[in-house]
């Protein structure tokens, strides 16, 4: 059980960066962005290639961040400047990135077994324990969350949120919503490429197909987090993203331990999202507060008929 928890925490904190990026595009600027499935392996491809070429791993991380940002900008420009639909813009960039990722790697898989990564010194702190890594990824995600929270409360951040909330209004206040949309997509994909870079270094390889399903995972984690915390403001929303990702990986780990085959994971993810989406309706109908209210009403009716 403890083992499952450790796995869930590590994966949860690793992938929470993706969920945070999904939050920026899907919730903040309300842009259903498919670029994610390309920018995640983009981070991995760049990092693995640079490390395999003998460069400092930290450069790989930095370049991944900027490359992810650029991918988001490309999607944003296609949508805002050339009026290609949001879904299609993301789909196009995702498709383009597949080839770019292959070109960067030169083949479909780069193992990093014999190279040091930025995680190597951290792993060595306590031999054969995941605790240092969990701690490292916790710091990364908390720092990212703090930065995103702070940013969304700035003048520019407010304009970004309004772009998703009421684009017409913020435009009439003199804000270039092309710019805010592009910026939001850039930031989201920078976070996601960063996640791809760090996860590649943890798992010890980059693979061309590592992005498959990452968007659905992010969406699932986001919806689970929102259902659990029902966030009322930005701070709680980003907190929900982290919690949702950890819960998602906990459920998946439990499922695998109970004998779920890895091929069943997509079904499990789909069911989990469906349950999370059904929760508000179920809560209204069968929730504790509803039952209490009913009981009170019955008691009242009974009391009145007696009196």
């Amino acid at each position, binding site marked *: 059980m403890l083992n499952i928890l450790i796995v869930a925490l590590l994966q949860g904190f690793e992938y929470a960066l993706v969920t945070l990026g999904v939050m920026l595009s899907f919730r903040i600027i309300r842009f259903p962005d498919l670029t994610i499935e390309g920018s995640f392996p983009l981070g991995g491809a760049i990092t693995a290639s640079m490390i395999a070429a003998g460069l400092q791993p930290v450069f790989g991380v930095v370049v991944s961040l900027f490359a992810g940002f650029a991918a988001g900008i490309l999607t944003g420009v296609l949508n805002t400047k050339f009026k290609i639909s949001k879904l299609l813009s993301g789909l196009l960039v995702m498709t383009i990135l597949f080839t770019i990722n292959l070109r960067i790697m030169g083949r479909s898989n780069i193992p990093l077994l014999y190279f040091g990564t930025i995680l190597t010194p951290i792993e060595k702190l306590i031999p054969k324990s995941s605790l240092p890594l969990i701690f490292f990824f916790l710091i990364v995600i908390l720092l990212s969350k703090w930065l995103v929270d702070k940013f969304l409360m700035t003048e*520019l951040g407010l304009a970004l949120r309004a772009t998703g909330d*009421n684009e017409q*209004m913020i435009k009439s*206040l*003199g804000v270039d919503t092309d710019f805010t949309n592009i910026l939001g997509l850039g930031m989201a994909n920078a976070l996601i490429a960063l996640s791809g870079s760090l996860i590649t270094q943890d798992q010890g390889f980059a693979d061309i197909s590592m992005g498959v399903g990452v968007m659905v995972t992010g969406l699932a984690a986001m919806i689970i987090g929102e259902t659990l915390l029902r966030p009322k403001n930005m701070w709680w929303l980003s907190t929900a993203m982290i919690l949702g990702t950890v819960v998602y990986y906990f459920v998946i780990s439990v499922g695998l331990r109970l004998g779920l085959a890895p091929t069943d994971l997509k079904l499990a993810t789909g069911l989990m999202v469906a349950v999370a989406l059904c929760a508000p309706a179920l809560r209204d109908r069968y929730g504790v507060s509803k039952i209490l209210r009913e009981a009170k009403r019955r008691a009242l009716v009974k009391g009145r008929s007696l009196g």
Partner: protein
Amino acid sequence: MLELENVTKVFNRGSIDEKVALQGINLKVSKGDFITIIGSNGAGKTTLLNSITGSVLVDDGNVIIDGLDVTHLSEFMRGKFIGRVFQNPLMGTASEMTVEENLSMALLRGKSRGLRKGVTENHRRTYKPILQTLGLGLEDRLSDRVGLLSGGQRQSLAILMATLALPKLLLLDEHTASLDPKTAAVVMDLTERVVKENALTTLMVTHNMEQAIRHGDRLIMMHEGRIILDVSGGEKSRLTVPEVVERFGVVDEKLLLV
């Protein structure tokens, strides 16, 4: 302040649905004018406002604001100096954001937005007395989401937001039409006060003839994309609903609704 020169707009030109919305409109608005615009459905009132804000690009003619030809300027660029309140209270505010966040966004109209804190204690101290003048209790709800407010509250907030940074031009597009009569009166009082206090140059489109006559210092009546009546000063203050009806016929029965 505002000049329209031969402004023309045709929708679906050359198709079976061709609709001439504006037929060579010429209009000069002086600084501080409060103009009410009235006309039946399809008279071109909203298209007129939209061609000023840039939501609609005109086919012909020029739009000049404060000496600057804005005919080809994009909507958000014009937003830097045009305040606007829409008919639908949902359109003028961001519902997922708080009252104070909405006001802060409005305060930055026409200014660059950077990484400074969006809402500061200083801001809150400024907003409270302004909201107090509304008498709606919004001064105690600064950190409430706007989605929790009523239509009248949202529209009042929208008026504050449109005028907070003192735009060169204020455009009101039937902004009381979707409110109940009592709330509409409150919102109209607020409009009148804000416009007077700041001597804002204002264009107010309305469906309500009585409202058009009672408010403002100049009245324009539109019909089929043309201005058919333009009165101001003493002549306007003597105007009555029956007189207008007699001169122009009942263009639209809705115009008579008070």
